[in-house]
């Protein structure tokens, strides 16, 4: 197979998933690209992550947030349905709900499971499930949104952040949207003490619902929340807003969301193409993603997007080949992502995380580099051993230039700059030719390969997907 194919496959797997090992890449690249995309778009063709194994080590119903984050990262690393998991993270980015307020692990885990279940379905279904999700209802106070006293928090954010973006509706639309969602609440949960955390369920209270006539985005009637969602999904503003979110998450970093009403997209034609796919499928996310992954603008967008902490952490773990089975160490991995600025299940505010370049500041870069370097600071890690084995298989001794080239290739392939390559070359040259001829030499060589891999994950380029 051509090296170009492998690099494109690696790109697809970084964006549509959380990266792939060399062995996975070689296997995946045997399929034509379009078929690979179809496999990604149809997660049901592949088995789910095995629950019983997870439950044996980390029992989720009684888990803490760090354990649940660890389990989620385990899924990102080990899932056979990478796009399903990536879309789950996408919806969590967009529909940012934070444990800081919810204070119920179970409710957060269930919300994210709902995103997973609906990951590639129709936006109408996704927004309906979202509007009925107890964590969301509590997060944006729809449980306080009453027939006689509206609380417009959910109504506003549903339009501003979850579907259309500012500038496409009036303050009256917000109020009427809020009215349409009165009575959408959850059942009184079982008290926390002494029973512990129990999930609650959506409850529709007709006695608290304002069934009066309302006008929303020009349509008038006895509108309920579900009518409002129907109207939202029909708006071309929604098609464009969702497309831009998808572009920003999967293709290239856009300006931060609040700028979207004023700053044009960086690739207007791409947004047009995605919005068209959205409209012609009446909001089917799978159809939009098919257009996205098969487009030239996607295929060309390599190594230009800043990895989120979740992507960085999962990618490094895949490279190291660790955490292929559930274990308690996964908690620490979740803590590492939080230290880089992404507390999964707990985004800072309803606007979610600032992405792109804003993932990086001194503190975050410090955490990213140290986590990645530490994860590869052990030559016995399966991923490192595999790369060492592949390099040793070339036979004989290896010149420094070839060594650097191989490391860069096998760790990605990563697209590195001249400065990075030269710095690595200087290190490689200082150690002379690489040899596996004696046991001692092989051990020394393995350590040098591991150190080069550490430099790669510490590099500027590795911060990008």
């Amino acid at each position: 197979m051509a090296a170009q194919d492998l690099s494109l496959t690696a790109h697809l797997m970084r964006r549509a998933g959380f990266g792939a090992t060399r062995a996975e890449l070689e296997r995946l690249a045997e399929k034509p690209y379009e078929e690979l995309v179809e496999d990604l778009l149809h997660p049901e063709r592949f088995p789910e992550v095995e629950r019983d194994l997870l439950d044996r080590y980390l029992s989720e119903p009684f888990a803490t947030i760090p354990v649940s984050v660890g389990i989620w990262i385990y899924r990102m690393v080990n899932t056979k349905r990478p796009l399903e998991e990536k879309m789950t993270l996408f919806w969590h980015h967009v529909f940012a709900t934070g444990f800081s307020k919810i204070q119920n692990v179970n409710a957060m885990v269930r919300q994210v499971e709902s995103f997973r279940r609906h990951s590639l379905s129709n936006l109408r279904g996704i927004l309906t499930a979202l509007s009925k999700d107890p964590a969301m209802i509590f997060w944006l106070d729809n449980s306080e949104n009453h027939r006689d006293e509206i609380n417009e928090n959910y109504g506003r954010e549903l339009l501003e952040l979850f579907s259309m973006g500012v500038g496409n509706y009036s303050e009256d639309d917000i109020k009427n949207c809020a009215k349409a969602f009165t009575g959408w609440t959850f059942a009184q949960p079982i008290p926390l003490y002494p029973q512990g955390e129990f999930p609650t369920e959506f409850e529709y209270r007709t006695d608290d619902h304002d069934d009066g006539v309302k006008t929303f985005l020009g349509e008038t009637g006895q509108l309920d929340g579900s009518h409002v969602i129907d109207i939202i999904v029909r708006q071309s503003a929604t098609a464009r807003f969702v497309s831009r979110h998808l572009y920003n998450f999967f293709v290239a970093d856009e300006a931060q969301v609040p700028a979207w009403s004023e700053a044009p997209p960086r690739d207007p034609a791409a947004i047009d193409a995605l919005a068209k796919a959205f409209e012609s499928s009446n909001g089917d996310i799978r159809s939009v993603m098919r257009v996205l992954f098969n487009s030239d603008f996607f295929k060309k967008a390599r190594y230009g997007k800043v990895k989120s902490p979740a992507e960085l952490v999962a990618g490094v773990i895949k490279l190291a080949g660790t955490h292929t089975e559930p274990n308690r160490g996964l908690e620490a991995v979740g803590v590492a992502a939080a230290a880089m600025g992404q507390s999964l299940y707990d985004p800072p505010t309803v606007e979610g995380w600032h992405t792109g370049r804003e993932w990086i500041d001194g503190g975050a870069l410090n955490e990213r580099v140290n986590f990645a370097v530490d994860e590869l600071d052990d030559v016995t890690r399966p991923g490192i051993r595999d790369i060492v084995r592949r390099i040793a298989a070339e036979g004989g001794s290896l010149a420094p230039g070839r060594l650097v080239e191989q490391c860069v290739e096998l760790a990605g392939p990563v697209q590195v700059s001249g400065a990075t390559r030269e710095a690595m070359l200087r290190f490689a040259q200082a150690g002379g030719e690489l040899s596996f001829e004696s046991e001692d030499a092989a051990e020394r060589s393995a350590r040098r390969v591991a150190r080069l891999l550490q430099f790669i994950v510490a590099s500027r380029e590795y911060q990008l997907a």
Partner: protein
Amino acid sequence: MAGNGKSLDGNGKQPVLVVVQMTGGNDFLNTLIPYTNPVYYDSRKTVGIPEGQALPIDDTLAFHPQAAPLKEMYEHGKVAVIQGIGYENSSRSHFRAMDIWHTCEPDKIGDEGWLGRAVRKLDPEKENVLTAVNFGRGLPRALSAPGVPVSSVGDLDNYGLMTGIEEKHRMEALDIFKEMYAPAIGSGPVMDYLSQTGMDVLKGADVLKQAPAKYSSEIEYADNSIAKSLRDVARVHLADLGTRVFYTNHGGYDNHANEYPDHPRLMTELSGAIMDFFQDLKQHDAGDNVVMLVFTEFGRRMKDNGSGTDHGSGGGAFLIGDPIQGGLYAEYPSIRPDDWLYGEDMRHTYDYRGLYATVLEQWLRIDSPEIVGGTYEQLSVLR
């Protein structure tokens, strides 16, 4: 007056600014409460603070009961309250409103922060990578400006690159890191930014590691995020590393629901942490060149919604410290129903850019018009 920002105060110390951001839109009406006004109680049947609990400072206004430390500092003349602060057509979006405060650009999307621009003037030659230090996860837009070095510290006690590599190899690894992050022409804005950030961490970490080692204090800060952050500010300030601008934030002010008990908890945490911070500085004789600015992105509505309050306008900000002439500044927003904006919001009475200009010109001693985008009415708030 305004110069290059190098001027010293009377004691030969550089003026230092500490910014505390209350994220989420603090409810000003429940922070400085019009406790004798019936309109307040009519409007706030659920979240209103009973007259007997509020902490009066005069016949009309009282601090929140949980803000007792703030009130105490107010009585000692160290707290200036800037009432009714805001701007025309206040945005009700957190994101946008915060951006407007950070960039001084209410009408378009700005990408340069006001403090980033200030740092550019304070340290034009980029002599000190610690001229501005942020504590917390994520760099606020206020501090970002192309080419301006800013250190952002998540964990002061573990700041430093490749600390996991054994010591005998670490220096070599750091050398390689330095080469890999060397700025190169034509590599694009993201790579440039990564280069600069990497180099700043490398330089900053070397210096910052002195701070925890040097610090000792009798003050026991509380166990919450803002107390930890202000303790970090104190540790770095006391290490005398040349930092002129500190930034940190305290989250959770978006009290649409459960304003009680959430808002009282925030008031306890924030005012307690501020009090501890200034006492810490005082004990080290290091408070006379520090001014703290506390702000939020907007105020909240007059009327509560039965559980909390929705996004509004006309908020409040605070300037705190020894150099401050305590008292009430600008006008409390009118709470007469006839004056409400959109029938539910308090009108702002003072433009936030005037407060920024005051801090920039009178405290940091740098020109403000190009930083805040024009000339705004300043306050006479410094001693």
